[in-house]
């Protein structure tokens, strides 16, 4: 097996005195597409931000390419690791194309402007998320789902090896959930990339993720292959509500309720 892109060693993360995970040992090899599941407020975003190096863990280490994340220059980290945030924070207007081009920032030297090649990369990413023809639209004028696809396009433009995606399916309609998560899963299978994404839909996780990391709250975490870990017992405990697993066309569907 090839060397992991991302590893955690005895990682403990806390937010506001609440444990997110304790002594977590995780390793994310190229080709993996991992789902991050857990209830509201359990710390999925906090964990993703810690893995991206945006906040310090309580203890333990995060290693990117085998080197502690904290000791690497931010720009180099941004070339290898891309984070899709849950919410956009911008309030100043920019066009859709300009917003997507921001993803090229870590790849450009200090004095360089975006080249035709960078613009072509951004246009291709916008096409891949179905925003073709909206390049010159102001980003604040987009609908929620279009905005989400623009943010996904921006991280595709960044073109990292490791994708940390905070609820990529949020606000997407069924068509785009299928199309974009399919693309994201495809990324993982392609050129040694890996994906870790938080999801709220168990069925999406079962369909697109080869393994799953569950956060139960109180620091308890469970990591394993989707087929094994996604069962009624674990999921009912995870969401504090009964979850039923039904066989369907050779696969399984997950339904809330007993």
């Amino acid at each position, binding site marked *: 097996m090839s060397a992991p892109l991302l590893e955690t060693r005895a990682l403990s993360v806390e937010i506001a005195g609440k444990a997110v995970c304790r002594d977590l040992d995780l390793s994310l090899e190229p080709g993996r597409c991992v789902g991050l599941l857990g209830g509201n407020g359990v710390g999925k975003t906090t964990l993703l931000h810690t893995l991206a190096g945006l906040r310090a863990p309580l203890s333990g280490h995060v290693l990117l390419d085998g080197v502690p994340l904290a000791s690497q220059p931010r720009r180099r980290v941004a070339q290898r690791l891309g984070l899709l945030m849950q919410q956009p924070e911008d309030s100043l207007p920019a066009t859709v194309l300009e917003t997507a081009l921001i993803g090229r920032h870590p790849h450009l030297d200090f004095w360089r402007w975006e080249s035709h090649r960078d613009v072509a990369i951004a246009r291709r990413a916008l096409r891949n998320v179905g925003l073709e023809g909206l390049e010159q*639209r102001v980003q604040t004028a987009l609908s929620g789902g279009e905005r989400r696809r623009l943010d996904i396009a921006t991280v595709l433009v960044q073109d990292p090896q490791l994708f940390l995606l905070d609820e990529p399916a949020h606000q997407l309609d069924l068509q785009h959930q299928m199309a974009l998560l399919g693309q994201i899963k495809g990324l993982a299978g392609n050129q040694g990339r890996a994906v870790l994404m938080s999801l709220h839909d168990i069925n999406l996780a079962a369909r697109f993720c080869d393994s799953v990391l569950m956060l139960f709250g109180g620091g308890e975490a469970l990591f394993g292959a989707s087929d094994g870990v996604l069962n009624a017992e674990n999921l009912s405990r995870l969401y504090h509500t009964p979850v039923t697993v039904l066989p369907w066309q050779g696969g399984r569907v997950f339904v809330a309720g007993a």
Partner: protein
Amino acid sequence: MQRHPRLVIWLPALLLLTLLAFGVSLALGSTSLSLHQLWDALGGGGDVLSRTVVLDLRLPRSVSAFAVGGLLALAGTLMQVLLRNPLADPYILGVSGGAAVGALGAFLLGLAGIWVNGGAFLGALLSTLLVFALAHGRGGWTPTRLLLTGIAVAAGWGAVISLLLVLGSDASLHSMIFWLMGDFSYQSSGSLALVVLVLGLAGCWPFARQLNVLARGETLAEALGIAVRPLSIAIYVAASLFTAVAVTEAGAIGFVGLVVPHMFRMLAGGDHRRLLPGAVLLGGCLLMLADTLARTVAEPRQLPVGVVTAAMGVPLFLYLLNRARGPL
């Protein structure tokens, strides 16, 4: 295909506008000159009167107005990125209030000239440091905290300004009110402000791409490899310095710093590599023309330039706002 005009169109257009504005500003006044006379005087020829008027009286004032307009537009652009708030202007963190208290304090003591400028500069710096220290607080340094601290400190300065106005003698009151509305009639060469403007723009411009990223949000900027905290502190220091120099030069001229960045964004987009030089040129022209109007429209009386910037800027801005497609 491009929503905004290209560099080769808007930059020469703005440079031409700047030249025109300089020409108008130098030619118009109590003795109006023809283009020919103006050209002669600038070349060191022509009659003594027009040479004195142009080179000794009008040129310094035009340069001063251009530099102040450019500084305010630059500071406004930076503040809008720093706070990621389209309503931010150079004075939003209380710089003008502190400067006003310093300047009015000097008037109240019967001082004039350099003392007023010195008082304004000291007041501006003091206010900057005060807001910075207070906003740091226990919880860290967020745009909202900075904004609220700035507004609170500005309100405090407002109370002190009112108090100074009440305490002032009738003789000093007139100068005080003119200072508060912005005024170029305290003659300075404008060269210091121009040097600060040129160096400031040259210093900020290389970071324009980082500003583009920061404008999209702090977390995203951090995730894209930008050292957000040092950059934010640098923006804060630079914008405060530019504002302090502008306020020292001409008093608190409103509206330019808030509106000019938006005007340029509506005309040519929000990329800071264009926005920074574009806003500087546009702000400089606007204020130079406003000052020309301020000293000619009600001759021999001179109006405070702040009155004219508002009178010119409000309808122009509202027109652009109305015309702009889609939400801002």
